[in-house]
């Protein structure tokens, strides 16, 4: 029997029972729609989170004091581990593939200026920070490349902090008090927005040595290193590790590459996407059961017809193929409707809740349709085998 004819006969059988077929394929459609919708949201969140993390560049490597063997991130509180120092940071600058290095000393302090006070996050860094984190200066300039130990008391304001303290006035050249120290404003950063709920613009950047003084700190909280684009982070990280180990005599620090972090994060988010997809898969399973039911009924109803097909010279495999084809056509059609439904719902959610990121990759769409077809095959096997094994004499006798 020709392929096209089998398909046509299967479709005729489906369209002959419009309502019943529609309800059956609706089960699959709802399942596929659920899978598509949930994985679209999962994938959207995945991409959103990764984009958040990569907005600072993907080739950043950080060295933290203290050896940690797990993937936890430091709390920012001073620890008893032997600190990394400003000298450690400058020692890394001459390593191969290293583009820029900045020490990083963080702390919270009150900033007073223009008659106003605001508590904000202070970063002690050096002139390389914009290069590493892809930030740009809106007006004035960033910290100058002063000597590490004797850096002048300049401050660069985040855009939010500038607005809070100076409004629309020009802050350049103004004097500020941070903690007990005096600083002169030499620049304002361009706004960067939020990162995982933290306002990146409510900050002030001062030289690292000044920040150490401000927070009574010996070492630095971390050293951020930008590696050359296209060079594996692992190679650069190994170089950094060797250099720091040589300086400290042992490995009492931790190196985190952003590449690795992103990979871990991506894996976690993938598992999340798969988990919600599996939840949708439960309804798909129910849809599959619906197909088994309806095909079993169809075989019983059309017993006489099966007998006739045998009498007309249809081999068993043709009868098997006809009923399998019917089940697959049902589920493939249901899958197709489910795709439209799921995709439409995802887009609607995107329209009404723009904050919720939604993304439907083509691979998911194809996979979902494939899953629908496989479910149809699996659901059709039992009834189709029953049809193919009917005794034609008995079958012809039933009306």
């Amino acid at each position: 029997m020709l392929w096209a004819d089998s398909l046509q006969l299967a479709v005729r059988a489906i369209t002959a029972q419009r309502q019943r077929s529609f309800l059956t394929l609706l089960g699959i459609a709802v399942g596929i729609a659920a899978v598509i919708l949930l994985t679209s949201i999962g994938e959207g969140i995945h991409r959103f989170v990764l984009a958040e993390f990569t907005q600072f560049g993907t080739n950043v490597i950080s060295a933290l004091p203290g050896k940690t063997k797990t993937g936890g991130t430091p709390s920012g509180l001073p620890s008893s581990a032997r600190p990394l120092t400003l000298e450690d940071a400058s020692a890394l600058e001459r390593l191969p593939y290293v583009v820029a290095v900045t020490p990083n000393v963080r702390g919270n302090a009150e900033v007073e200026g223009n008659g106003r006070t605001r508590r904000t996050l202070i970063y002690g860094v050096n002139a390389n920070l914009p290069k590493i984190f892809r930030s740009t200066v809106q007006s004035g300039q960033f910290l100058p490349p002063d000597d590490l130990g004797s850096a002048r008391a300049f401050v660069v304001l985040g855009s939010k902090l500038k607005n809070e303290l100076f409004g629309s006035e020009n802050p350049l050249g103004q004097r500020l008090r941070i903690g007990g120290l005096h600083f002169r404003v030499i620049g304002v950063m361009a706004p960067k927005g939020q990162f995982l709920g933290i306002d990146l613009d409510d900050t002030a950047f001062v030289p690292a040595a000044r920040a150490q003084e401000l927070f009574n700190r010996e070492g630095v909280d971390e050293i951020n290193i930008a590696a050359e684009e296209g060079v594996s982070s692992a190679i650069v990280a190994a170089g950094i590790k060797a250099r720091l180990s040589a300086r400290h005599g042992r490995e009492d620090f931790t190196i985190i590459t952003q590449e690795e972090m992103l990979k871990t994060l991506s894996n976690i988010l993938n598992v999340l996407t798969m988990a919600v997809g599996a939840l949708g898969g439960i309804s798909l399973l129910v849809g599959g059961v619906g197909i088994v039911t309806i095909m079993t009924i169809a075989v019983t109803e059309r017993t006489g017809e099966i007998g006739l097909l045998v009498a007309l010279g249809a081999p068993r495999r043709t009868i098997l193929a006809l009923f399998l084809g019917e089940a697959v056509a049902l589920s493939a059609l249901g899958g197709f409707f489910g795709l439209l439904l799921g995709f439409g719902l995802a887009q609607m959610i995107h329209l009404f809740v723009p904050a919720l990121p939604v993304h439907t990759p083509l691979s998911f769409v194809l996979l979902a349709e494939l899953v629908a077809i496989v479910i149809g095959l699996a659901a059709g096997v039992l009834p189709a085998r029953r049809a193919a094994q009917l005794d034609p004499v008995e079958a012809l006798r039933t009306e």
Partner: protein
Amino acid sequence: MALIELKGIARTFQLGDTTVNALADLNLVIDPGEYLAIMGPSGSGKSTLLNLLGLLDRPNAGSYLLEGRDVTTMQPDELAKVRSTRIGFVFQSFHLVPRLTAAENIALPMTLAGIPAAERVKRVAQALLDFGLENRADHRPDQLSGGQRQRVAIARATIMQPALILADEPTGNLDRHTGEEVVRLLEELNERGVTLVVVTHDQALGARARRQLMMEDGRLQSDSTHLPPLQGEGRGGDGLIAPISNPSPSPPPP
């Protein structure tokens, strides 16, 4: 060469603990072009015989040569092939596929045999003309009268140009007049050389065949050849009843 040669055919069914002999030690030779009626009361084994002849059922013993080939040893797929090309079925209840049009029902054996669509269309168009169904091609069975349905079924049975047509009570669901028409159609096919085997317990219908088999309890009771009384002119011989070679007494009922 005989079209059909049955030798020592037996077919038993297991009904609970008892074994029912539906056919026992049956010998039969049917030549090409014959017009044969199988008659007998219900349960006499005539339907079983028809199913055996149509390769829908296998005997428990004996041999069945169809056109010289032993079909009792054939694989199911080979049997399907033989059914498809050599045998046409006509049923009492027509057995049309309700969701297909008349034309599609007639084309069904060709569709199953994998004959290309263009060839199918040509042959179906001719068949529709031959059976006076040209205005009914796109009607579904429930839009056809009983006589038209049976004509569709006969067209379907002949579309593969089989050597043998097996008709099981072809007029059973029809009124006298339409039944007459349908029988005449079948007889015309027979006159063109197709072997026609009709199973019926309608005496009048059976009497029209040139050869009658009377069955009882799975055995041939009589095998008589005569010319139908109305169409006998021009042919040699007349209503002659030939006794069969081995008239066996009926077995006790189970």
